[in-house]
């Protein structure tokens, strides 16, 4: 189901023991606010749909504020390098794909999938040859998606990759969906930790027309995160969400389908947001249903023929609202009981950002 390659995360040569610790791909330190804005490190993120990078393709993507090159080598293995030639920093993405390596367009320097300089054609034998000086990330593919471990520093240890349970269960059928939103990633997290917006923003949707427009919520701890759920309603609207902290941070939730969506009951969603930069996000969803045999085939047909567009309309309601929010929309709010989930996720991420900023500072002592 998944393939994974672990490669060293080579950082800047200034980093190292007793020296300044830089964030991989940035050549500088970031403070807690910058880390929170551009994305917390030391975790796996979904990067891009697998179908967008065919064998022999080179694709430039920005994630967590850094330009990366995705390329699929001649054997089909996906590689992810910082999009920057170690020689004079030209983007590797404008160079040439040479099967197992890429060649920079500027001076022909060749870098392999691990970030090692394998040839300097202009100066054979040059000391740069054989050195691993381009940041390369550990990558995995599964659920139709390319994932990568985005390290904080070059000393970061790559953690094991694990798909969310819902995407790694043969009894569950899923479709992936990808979108780019001009909205900070933290707004995505706030939105999904706020189930109550379903009964208002999505009232006229195919799936969230039912249920009460008032509720009481509670937080319930789980071994992988926490539930934020209505105490008085389940199975009628967007009534609960689980924030899961495994090798990736993601949300897991279920929303009822109308009878017209066919057999199989509620559908499940796995949702993740990867920062592109501080103002834009790559948004990944998997729509799932626990169905087998002919019911599985019917759901897949119905999804492709009619349901996907309905799901998309709901997602667009979220996007349009979040893109309309001011850059400081999460300052000076007046939260109420329904926002306990929002407050909790903000605290979790703020603590992470502080912790990661402290690691960077310790390295410069």
């Amino acid at each position, binding site marked *: 189901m998944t393939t994974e390659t672990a490669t060293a995360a080579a950082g800047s040569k200034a980093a190292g023991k007793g020296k300044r610790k830089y964030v991989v791909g940035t050549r500088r330190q970031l403070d807690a606010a910058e880390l929170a804005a551009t994305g917390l490190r030391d975790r796996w993120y979904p990067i891009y749909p697998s179908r967008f990078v065919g064998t022999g393709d080179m694709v430039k993507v920005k994630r967590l504020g850094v330009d990366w090159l995705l390329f699929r080598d001649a054997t089909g293995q996906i590689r992810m390098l910082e999009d920057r030639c170690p020689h004079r920093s030209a983007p590797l993405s404008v160079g040439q794909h040479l099967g197992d390596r890429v060649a920079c367009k500027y001076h022909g320097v060749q870098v392999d999938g691990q970030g090692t300089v394998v040839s300097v054609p202009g100066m054979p034998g040059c000391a740069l040859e054989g050195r691993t000086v381009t940041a390369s990330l550990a990558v995995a593919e599964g659920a139709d998606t390319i994932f990568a471990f985005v390290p904080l520093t070059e000393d970061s240890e790559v953690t094991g990759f694990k798909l969310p349970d819902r995407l790694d269960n043969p009894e569950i059928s899923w479709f992936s*969906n*990808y*979108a780019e939103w001009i909205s900070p990633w933290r707004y995505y997290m706030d939105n999904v930790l706020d189930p109550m917006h379903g009964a208002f923003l999505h009232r006229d949707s195919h799936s969230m027309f039912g249920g009460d427009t008032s509720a009481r919520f509670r937080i319930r701890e789980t071994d992988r995160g926490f539930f934020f759920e209505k105490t008085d309603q389940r199975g009628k609207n967007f009534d609960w969400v689980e924030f899961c902290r495994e090798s990736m941070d993601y949300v897991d939730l279920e929303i009822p389908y109308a*009878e017209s969506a066919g057999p199989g009951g509620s559908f499940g969603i796995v949702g993740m947001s990867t920062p592109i930069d501080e103002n834009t996000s790559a948004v990944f969803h998997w729509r799932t249903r626990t169905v087998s045999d002919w019911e599985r085939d019917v759901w897949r*047909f119905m999804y492709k*023929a009619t349901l*996907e*567009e309905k799901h998309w309309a709901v997602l667009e309601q979220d996007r349009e609202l979040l893109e309309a929010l001011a850059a400081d929309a999460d300052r000076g709010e007046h939260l109420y009981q329904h926002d306990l989930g929002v407050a909790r996720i903000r605290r979790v991420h703020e603590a992470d950002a502080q912790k990661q900023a402290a690691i960077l500072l310790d390295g410069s002592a």
Partner: protein
Amino acid sequence: MLEQYLEANQSRVGPPHPYEQKLAGALTEIFASGTHELPAIITGLNNLGLNAPDGQPWDEARFRSEMRRLGE
């Protein structure tokens, strides 16, 4: 400025065939009436005047086979 990727249909290539739209519409109508069992769904399709791809009335084998093809 980011050129935003916003694509409503990502699970299929191109617009659905009119036949598929008609079939999905009929199934939506049948499901909306609360029918979720296979024999009743097949009866529902036949009552709506839709034929299987070979021009014959739907039966279980034809329905399973066509859904397998369309749901791939």
